[in-house]
C-alpha cells in the first residue's frame, strides 16, 4: 500500500513534467494579426496596404511642410510644431522623422508586395491592377521623400543618397507604374503616375519634361490621399477650428481674412482684394488658439476627419505648364493658363506681367492659392530660393530668417539603425538659409 501511494505520487510528478514538455499545450495563436502565409490569399489588401500607407501620412506631411514654409504657424502646445515653425529643429530633433519612417516603410512594403504578386500571380502579375497600385505607391513614396527631405536611403537598408537621386528614382518608378497601369487598363493609376512624374521632373529642374508630362493629365483629374473614419485626416484633427487648433494660418495672411467673418469664409484675392478666392477656404470667429493667446485663423479646406487631401491633380499640372511657359519667356502663354485657372473659380483675370520677376510673384501667389494646404508652398520657397526673403518680410524675432532649415533632415531612426549610414552628424545634410 505504501509503495502504491509512492508510485502514484511519482507518477503525478512525472505527469506534471511531461505536461510541461507537451508542445501542443504551449501553442497559442494570435487571432488579430496576419502571417506571411495569410497574405498570399489577401493580395488586394496587400496592394491597398501599400497605397494606403502613403496616403495615411500625407496629412502629417502637409502640416509640417506648412509649418516649415510660411503657410502655418504654431498656435498650440506641441514642441514638434513649435520647433518646426521657429526653425529650431536640428538633425535628430525633427518632428518629421515619423513621416519619413512611414514613407520608407511603405516603400519596403511595395517591394515586398511586388515580390508576393509575382509569386502568386506569376505571368499575370505584370498586367495586374494590383501591381499598378503597388508600383504607384512605391513611386509616390519616393516623390514625397525627395520633395521634403534632403537625403534618404534609396533602397531598403541602403546608403543615403541626395534628394535629387531619390527624385530621379521616383521618375523611374513612375515610368514603371505608368507601364503597368497601361497594361492593366487602370487610367486613374496611369494619370496619377504621369502627374507624379511631372512633379518629380519639375523638382529636378526638368521643366520641359515636367510640362510635357503635365500636359498629358486631363482637366478635372485629381488623385487624392484618401482618408476614412479609421485613418483620420490629422490636419483636421489638430489644426482646425473645430478640433485642436494646434496650428493656424501664419499672421502674414490674416489681413486677407475678414475680421468679422464669424466662421467659414474665403481669403480675399491677392490682386483683387474685393473678391473672395474660393480656393482658400478659412475659418475665423475671433477666438484664440490652444496656446490661449494667438487668434486662430483656421484652414477650412478639410473640415472633417475623412476629408481627402489632393496629392496630384490637373490644376497643379496646368501650373507646371504655366511655369514652363514663364521660364521660356512666354509670359502671354503663362498668364493665359493662370487666368484660365482663376476664371474657373470666378476671379478676375490678371494682366500680363511686365517681366519675369512679376511673373514669378504671380506664379507663387497662384500656386499658394491653387495648392493651398497641399504642402507645396515650402517646396516653392525652397526651389525659388526665397525662404530668407519671405521670413525677413515676416520679421518675427522668434522666427529668424537666417539659419532657417529649408528642407527636413533624414529620419534619425533610419540613420541610427541602418548600418549603411554612418552615425556622424557632420556627414548629414540639413540645408538652411544663409
Amino acid at each position, binding site marked *: 500500500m505504501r509503495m502504491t*501511494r*509512492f508510485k502514484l*505520487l511519482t507518477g503525478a*510528478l512525472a505527469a*506534471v513534467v511531461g*505536461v*510541461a*514538455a*507537451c508542445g501542443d*499545450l*504551449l*501553442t*497559442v*495563436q*494570435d*487571432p*488579430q*494579426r*496576419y*502571417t*506571411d502565409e495569410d*497574405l498570399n490569399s*489577401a493580395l*488586394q*489588401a496587400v496592394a*491597398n496596404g501599400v*497605397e*494606403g*500607407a502613403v*496616403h495615411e501620412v500625407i496629412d502629417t506631411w502637409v502640416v509640417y511642410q506648412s509649418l516649415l514654409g510660411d503657410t502655418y504657424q504654431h498656435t498650440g*502646445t506641441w514642441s514638434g510644431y*513649435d520647433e518646426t515653425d521657429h526653425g529650431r529643429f*536640428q538633425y535628430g530633433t525633427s518632428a518629421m522623422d515619423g513621416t519619413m*519612417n512611414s514613407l520608407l*516603410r511603405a516603400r*519596403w*512594403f511595395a517591394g515586398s508586395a511586388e515580390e508576393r504578386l509575382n509569386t502568386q500571380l506569376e505571368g499575370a502579375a505584370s498586367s495586374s491592377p494590383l501591381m499598378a497600385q503597388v508600383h504607384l505607391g512605391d513611386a509616390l513614396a519616393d516623390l514625397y521623400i525627395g520633395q521634403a527631405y534632403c537625403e534618404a536611403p534609396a*533602397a*531598403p*537598408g541602403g546608403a543615403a543618397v541626395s534628394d535629387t537621386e531619390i527624385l530621379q528614382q521616383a521618375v523611374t518608378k513612375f515610368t514603371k507604374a505608368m507601364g503597368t497601369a497601361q497594361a492593366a487598363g487602370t487610367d486613374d493609376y496611369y494619370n496619377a503616375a504621369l502627374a507624379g512624374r511631372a512633379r518629380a521632373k519639375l523638382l529636378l529642374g526638368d521643366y520641359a519634361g515636367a510640362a510635357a508630362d503635365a500636359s498629358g493629365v486631363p482637366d478635372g483629374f485629381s488623385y487624392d490621399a*484618401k482618408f*476614412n*473614419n*479609421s*485613418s483620420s485626416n490629422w490636419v483636421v*484633427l489638430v489644426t482646425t477650428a473645430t478640433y*485642436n487648433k494646434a496650428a493656424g494660418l501664419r499672421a502674414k495672411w490674416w489681413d486677407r481674412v475678414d475680421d468679422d467673418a464669424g466662421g467659414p469664409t474665403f481669403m480675399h484675392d491677392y490682386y483683387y482684394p474685393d473678391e473672395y478666392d474660393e480656393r482658400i477656404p478659412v475659418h475665423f470667429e475671433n*477666438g*484664440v*488658439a*490652444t*496656446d*490661449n*493667446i494667438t487668434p486662430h485663423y483656421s484652414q477650412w479646406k478639410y473640415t472633417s476627419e475623412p476629408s481627402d487631401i489632393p496629392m496630384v491633380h490637373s490644376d497643379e499640372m496646368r501650373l507646371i505648364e504655366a511655369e514652363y511657359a514663364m521660364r521660356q519667356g512666354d509670359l502671354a502663354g503663362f498668364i493665359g493658363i493662370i487666368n484660365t485657372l482663376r476664371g474657373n473659380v470666378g476671379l478676375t483675370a490678371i494682366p500680363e506681367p511686365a517681366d519675369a520677376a512679376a511673373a514669378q510673384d504671380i506664379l507663387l501667389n497662384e500656386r499658394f492659392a491653387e495648392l493651398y494646404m497641399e504642402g507645396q508652398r515650402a517646396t516653392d520657397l525652397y526651389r525659388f530660393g526665397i525662404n530668407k526673403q519671405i521670413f525677413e518680410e515676416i520679421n518675427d524675432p522668434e522666427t529668424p530668417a537666417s539659419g532657417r532649415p529649408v528642407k527636413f533632415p533624414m529620419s534619425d*531612426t*533610419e540613420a*541610427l*539603425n*541602418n548600418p549603411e549610414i554612418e*552615425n556622424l552628424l557632420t556627414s548629414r545634410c540639413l540645408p538652411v538659409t544663409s
Partner: protein
Amino acid sequence: MYRLQVRKTSWAGALGALGLAVALSPLALSAQTGNVTGRVVAATTGQPVNGAQVSIEGTSQGSLTNSNGRYVITRVPTGTVTVQVVSVGYATQTMEVTVASGQTAVADFELQVSAVALDEIVVTGTAGAVERRKIGVSLASVDVSDITEAQPITGFGQILEGRVPGLRSIGTVGGVGTTRELRIRGTDSFSLGQRPIVYIDGVRVDGSGGEWGGGVNGGSTTCCAFSGGAGEDRLSDLNPDEIDRVEVIKGPAAATLYGSEASGGVIQIFTKRGRNNSPASFSLTSTLGINRHRENFPTHERSRRQITGPDGFVAWDPNETLIENGLINSYDLTVDGGGENITYFVSGGFAYEEGSVKPNDQKRGNLRVNLNWTVGDNLTVGVTSGYVRNRIYSLQSGNNWLGIYTNALLSNPRNATEEEPYGGGLDVNVEDSQAIETFSDTDRWTGAVTLNYNMRPNFTHKATVGLDAVNDQKTRILPFGRYYTYIGTNGERNIGYRNTRKFTADYLGNLDYDLDGLFGGSFAFGGQAYWDATSTSMATGKDYAGSGVTTVGGAARTFGGEEFFEEVNVGAFAQNRFDLGDLFVTLAVRVDGNSAFGENYGAQWYPKADMAYNVPVDILPSMFSNVKFRAAYGQAGKAPGAFDQFRTYSPNTVLDDEAGVAPLNPGNADLEPENKTEIEAGFDIGMFNGRIGIEATFYDARTTNALLGIALPPSEGFSSAQLRNVGEILNRGVELSVNASPINTAGFRWNTGVNYEWTKNEILDLGETAQLDSLPVYADGIKTDDANANTPIRWEKHYRLGGLREGYPVGTFVSRRIVGWDSAEQEHVRTTYSSYLGKLFPDHLASWNNDFQLGQSLRMNVQFRGEWGAVMANSDRSYGVRQYAYDEYNKHLDDNLDPTPAADSVLNYMRLVTPADSRDHVRLQEVALTYTLPESLTSRIGLQRSSITLAGYNLYWWDDCNCPDPNQQYQGGASFSTSPFLGLPQPRRFLLSFRTRF
C-alpha cells in the same frame, strides 16, 4: 556515458533517501486524544493577542487565537505535549502540558514584545510552511490584521506603503480607484511590466493597473484613453478587511520556484480563516471621512491678483473652486468561527468614496466566504471564494483634452468668461467637461479549492486549483448637445469589455525527513500550470441625432475592435532543504515551458540555493538575543509578450474604407524569457531580548537576456522593433530595517521602525546594435551672457540604443537645458545638445513607522516616508507657463496684468525647455489615533472590544518640485512612464472609524 551514470546514481540516491525517510517516518497518530485551550495576552499590557498561531509541536495540529486571545486545539494526543505560540511582534513561547484522554488541558501565555520574528511561519517561495529562521532569503510579511485593527485602511495599495523595504508602493494619481505605482527592487526590464505577480490564497490573479482600450484593433476610432491614462487598479478590488497577511518576496533569490513570471517579485495575499471550536465572532467596522486635496495648485495668482477676462469676469482659481470634499463611507461586517471539523470566515463590505475633484467616485461591494473542512485526520479541504463588484466613476484627467483638471489648470485667466470661468483656449467649458460620464464596472470572482493530504505526518501533499475571473465593462458618454474638442456637439459613446481569466493548478509535495546521525531536512516537489487569457472588445458610436439615445447602435457612425491574448505556462520544481543543526541549506531547481517562448526555444531552467545560519545563542554576547546570517542565489524569469515571437502584419482600413494590411512585427522565433540572477546576503539580529531587531540585506540582481526592441531601419519595413534577448541590467541595493521597542511598560509602549532602501539601477549592455554615442556635460552655475555657456566642458561616451544608454539607469531624463541669458537677443541660451539631467526613479527610499500605546485605551500610529534621487521632467510647469496659466508667469505681470520683461523671460524659458525638477521629498503619510472604549461601557450593550479611530493620510509633504505633488505621475502604475502631465495629485484623506466585535 560517464555523465549519464552519475546522473542515474544521483537520482537513485535521492529516491533512496526519499524511501528511507518514508520508512523512518512516525507511525499514525494514536486514537487517544484530549484538548488544549487557553488565552494569549501581551505581557506588559494584558491586551489579548489576536491571530496568534498556537500549535502542538511535532504535529500538524494548531489553531489561531480569536480577538479575545482565546484558542482551542482538539484531538491532541494524550501525554505530555509542547504547546507553541508564535505571533508577529512577540517572542515565541512554548509550554509543556499534560493531556489526558477526553480532558481539556489549559495553557495560558503572556507574550513578551519582540522586534524579531525568526519563528514566524512563512510559505511564499519556500515550497511549504517553514520557520523564518530556516530560510536564507529576505522575505517580508505584513500583518494586515494588526494594521487594520489600528487604522481604517480602505485600499490594498495603502497596506504596503512604506512598510516593506525594497517595495515601492505609492499613490501617484489622485482619482479614486486609479492605479498606483508598485515595484520591487528597481527596474529590471526594458519593456516588460514591472509589477510583481500577485497571488491570493495560492491563485495567481489579475494585478494589472492601467488604462486599456486605446490599443484595441480599430485604433483611435474605437475609443480612447477612457479617463486620461491612469485607468483602474485591479488591486483596488480587494477589501483590506478580508486580508489576514501579505507576504512579499522581492526577487529571483526567493522567487525561483515561481519561475517565468516572478523575476519582479511575488506578492501573496492570505485572506482570513475561521478558527476551530470557536463560537461565531462578529466584527463590524464603519468608516466615514473625506478626500480633500491640498490647495497647492500653481494658480493662486488668479484670485490673489483678481485676474479678469475681457469682460471683467474674475477668473476662478482651481484651489478655491475645483477642490471639494469627497465623501468616504464604508462598512464591513465579518463573522468567523468554527466547530470540530469545519471553520468559516464570511465577510461582506461596502465602500463608497468620492474624489476631491468631481465627478469621480467608487462604489465597491465585497463578499467572501472561506471554509475549511477537516475531512479526517489526514485530509482537509479548503474553499475560498471572493466576489467583488467595483464601480468606478473615473475622473477625466492626465493626458486628456477633455479633463476638468486640465481645463481648470491650463486655461489663461485673462480669457476667463462666465462660460469658461477658468479661461479659454481649451475649447471645452467646465460644465461640458463635467458632463462626461466614464464608468468602469467590474465583476470579479476569485476562488480556489485546496486539498491538504497528510499521507504521513512528515509527508504531505497540497493541491490547489483556482480561478480569477475579471469582467470589466467600461463606458464613456460625451452627451449630445455639448461641445467637445475633436468630437463636436453630436455626442459620442464608447464601450469596452475586458474579460480576464487566470487559471491556476498547483501541486506541492513535502517530505520532512530525519536521517538519524546524518541530518534532517525537507524535500519538496511539485508543479504548476497557469493559463491566462484576456479578451478585449470595444465599440464606439459617433454622431447622434439628438439626446435620448445613448446606445452605440443609435449613432450614425459605429466602430468596433477586438483583441485577444493567451499565455500558458507549465512548470515543475524540486527542492531540498538540509537541516544541519543551526545551519539550513536549501537547493532547488525549476523548469518552465511557456507559450510565449520562441518556437525555436525549449524549456527554461531556474536553479536556486540558499543558506541560513543561526548563531548559537550560547556563544553570542549577552546583548544579542539572536543572530542569523543568510545568503542566497537564485534565478527567475519574465516571459515575453504573448505573441511577440510571431512575424505579423496588422489589418487596417485604408483608402475608401477598404481592407488593407501593414507590416507590424518582424517576430523572433528564438525569443527566450528574460533571465534574472540574484545574489542576496544579509543578517537578522535581535538585541536586548528582542527589543531591537535589525534586518539588513544586500542584493545584486542582473537581468540577462533582457528583451530589447531592436529598431529596424524604417526602410526595411516593419514598424515594431524586433525583440531580441540581448540586454543586461543591474539592480544592486541595500535594504535595512530596524525595529525597536524602546519603551514597553504597562502604561506606555512605543514600537518604532525605520525602513531604508538604496537601489542602483544601471544598464550594463545594450547588445551589438548599440552605437557609440556621447552626452555633453555643461558647467553648472555659469554666469549669464557667458560666451562659453553653450560649450560643453566635456563629453561622456557610452553606447546607446534609442533612449537607453549603457552606464545609465533605465529611466533617464536627457534634454536640452538653459545655460545662460543672451541680453542682445533678450532670450535664454539653450544648449545645442541634450545632456543628462537625472534619473526618473528614486534610488533612496525610507520610511519611519511609529506605534504608540498609552495605557489600555489609546494607540497612535505615525508614518513618515521619503524618496530621494529622482528628477521629474516637469512638463506641467512648462506647459502651464506657455499657456499663461500658472503663477510662475502670472506673478510677473504688471499692475495692468500686462507682461513684464520678467514674465517674458519665464515664458521664453519654458518655451525652450522642459525643466528638470527634483522629486526629493519627505511626506507625513499616516497619523492614526485609536481609542479603545472601556469594556465596562461596551459590554452593557453587548459589544466586545470596540474602538474609535481618527486618521489622516497623505497629510503633508515637503518638496522642491515646483509641482503639486512630487509623486505625481499621470499614468499611475505604468512601468516606465513617469511623466506628471496633468495627472491629478493624490488627495489628503481624513477618516473617522468605529470598529467593534460582538
